[in-house]
């Protein structure tokens, strides 16, 4: 019987019916302390520290602090110190604040080469779907499940349904992976993928860089999907080869990890990529999205009305007329070296608008070091951007990087929920290129016909 990529990985990891083996468990400071505490109370151990890896990302300040004791916020400091203590006690390897390998958990996994095709990967974070870009089955779990994986290296799971989104055509100039996934979410809705593992397929996906594929799989959760996946190919192999944890010889089976012709999908969606435009969200869910050359739509129901009120926007306003106070380039969606290169190309030699503050937060210390080696930090700094150290930062504002009430931000992150980037803050999700151009102009511009200001 023909099988999908998802079927193949699932079956290779079934220990028993309803019990799935986990190849890699990524851990961070926010969703793990209660799990470690329960292990202690029950006298349990971590079954496979060698398949577990921790980092501190959500709470860390991006001001260049190098040890947890420098974290000024007491609760954040305690959380990072608790993670460090738990990892020491249970023998779990950790890259905490100050490590040259520290960074956002979904950036460092691929970067270190621990994310590989064919694996099952979990983490107490919904954006674990990112790792599916490598042809892995990767999804977010809650703290009880974190504890379960720590203790047993397995998860009790029912097999989700399968969806395939097939893209045809070609992405136009200035239209990126971020625009592809934002418009896909706009199309299927924020609960369109609920109960499904989504495979992204077709030539436009195959042409994406690994960074682009990670952006797409990352936001699977914003479309309600459990996990996103892309079949591994030469692009994948080339990206993994030579990384710290990569195998010496690339296993032949990586090339066979693909969906067979005729495999069953519970839901199929087809999208013509050539019809897509750069996207900007206007509301308070990622599905409330419009093309940059469009306008804020008429509300369709109470939810839209509430969103427009929160966002302080009127229907019919041209997206390009929306003026901004802040720009944030970062997050597990768009903070990799490829993202920073794209943004820097737009910024090069220009100045940030006087009406706003803009910041770049590299996804990891390794991304930061690479960007500095290429001189990207100078491009951003001389334009007036704040150049920070690695972390989740203003994607969710658990650290000091937050919006003030009423501030409006163009952000390369993944969620525009009320208060997400700071209480009362207003978030518009965009691609790194669009964020960079908006930073220069002070309002959104259509990157396709922007002449450089």
């Amino acid at each position, binding site marked *: 019987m023909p099988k999908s990529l998802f079927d193949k990985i699932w079956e290779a990891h079934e*220990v028993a019916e309803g019990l799935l083996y986990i190849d890699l468990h990524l851990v961070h400071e926010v969703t793990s302390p209660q799990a470690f505490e329960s292990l202690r109370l029950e006298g349990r151990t971590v079954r496979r520290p060698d398949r577990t890896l921790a980092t501190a990302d959500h709470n860390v300040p991006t001001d260049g602090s190098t040890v947890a004791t420098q974290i000024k916020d007491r609760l954040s400091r305690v959380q990072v110190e608790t993670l460090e203590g738990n990892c020491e006690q249970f023998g779990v390897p950790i890259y905490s604040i100050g490590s040259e390998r520290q960074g956002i958990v979904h950036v460092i996994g691929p970067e270190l080469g621990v994310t590989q095709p064919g694996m099952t990967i979990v983490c107490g974070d919904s954006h674990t779907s990112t790792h599916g870009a490598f042809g892995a089955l990767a999804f977010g779990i809650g703290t009880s499940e974190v504890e379960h994986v720590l203790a047993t290296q397995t998860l009790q799971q029912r097999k989700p349904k399968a969806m395939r989104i097939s893209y045809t055509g070609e992405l136009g100039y200035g239209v990126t992976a971020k625009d592809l996934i934002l418009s896909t979410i706009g199309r299927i809705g924020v609960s369109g993928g609920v109960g499904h593992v989504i495979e992204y397929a077709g030539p436009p996906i195959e042409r994406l860089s690994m960074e682009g594929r990670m952006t797409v799989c990352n936001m699977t*959760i914003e479309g309600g999907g459990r996990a996103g996946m892309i079949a591994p190919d030469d692009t994948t192999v080339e990206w993994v080869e030579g990384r710290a944890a990569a195998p010496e010889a690339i296993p032949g089976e990586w090339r066979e990890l693909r969906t067979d012709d005729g495999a069953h999908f519970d839901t199929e969606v087809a999208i013509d990529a050539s019809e897509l435009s750069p996207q900007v969200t206007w509301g308070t869910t990622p599905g409330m999205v419009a093309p940059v050359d469009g306008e804020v739509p008429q509300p369709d129901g109470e939810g839209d009305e509430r969103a427009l009120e929160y966002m302080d926007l009127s229907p019919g306003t041209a997206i390009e007329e929306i003026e901004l106070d802040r720009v944030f380039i970062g997050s597990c969606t768009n903070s990799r070296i490829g993202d920073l290169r794209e943004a820097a190309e737009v910024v090069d030699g220009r100045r940030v608008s006087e009406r706003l503050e803009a910041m770049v937060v590299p996804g990891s210390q390794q991304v930061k070091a690479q960007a500095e080696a290429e001189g990207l930090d100078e491009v951003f700094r001389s334009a007036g951007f704040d150049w920070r150290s690695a972390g989740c930062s203003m994607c969710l504002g658990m650290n000091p990087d937050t919006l003030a009430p009423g501030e409006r931000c163009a952000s390369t992150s993944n969620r525009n929920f*009320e208060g997400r980037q700071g209480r009362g803050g207003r978030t518009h999700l965009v691609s790194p290129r669009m964020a960079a151009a908006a930073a220069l102009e002070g309002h959104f511009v259509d990157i396709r016909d922007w002449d450089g200001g």
Partner: protein
Amino acid sequence: MDPINVIEGAVSVLGRNDVDTDQIIPKQFLKRVERTGFGEFLFYDWAKQPGWDLPPNPILATGRNFGSGSSREHAPWALEDYGFKAIVAPSFADIFYSNCTKIGLLPVTLPEGDVKALMEAGHARVDLAEQEIAFGGRQLRFEIDQETARRLLEGLDDIGVTLGQGDAIDAYEAGRERSGPVTTSL
């Protein structure tokens, strides 16, 4: 986890769709390292708005795609700590649904029209063993995975159950575990 079976009482109504975990429990409250005490921060920002009325009844009725967003188990912890024992909605986000079942907070999925009728009825009785919810003179069946229902009814410790399958895990690791990557030798 304590076993659950029948949940009966008044219904609190939150008539919104796509309620996300950032609203249920905003990020500033995720810094605690304990599992308890989140109830007072439930819907922290919305609760300050005029007209907000969400008493801590046993049952919460709400809109579709409830619990969308992050994997934070702090969201079910807060709802449960606040006083809810069952949440009835047309649909739930996957991770949130799973997290609820891990802590004994019962998610019940009903068609949208029935959830609206429940909101109007104001009182209900949920019977997990029978997979039935009764309100306003009606008795409706709801679907739930049988294994999940069994764990909730018996209040099982998931980890204890899985450790009972230790031989199967050992056998998997001995014969089928994929090689690498080894995080401890990076």
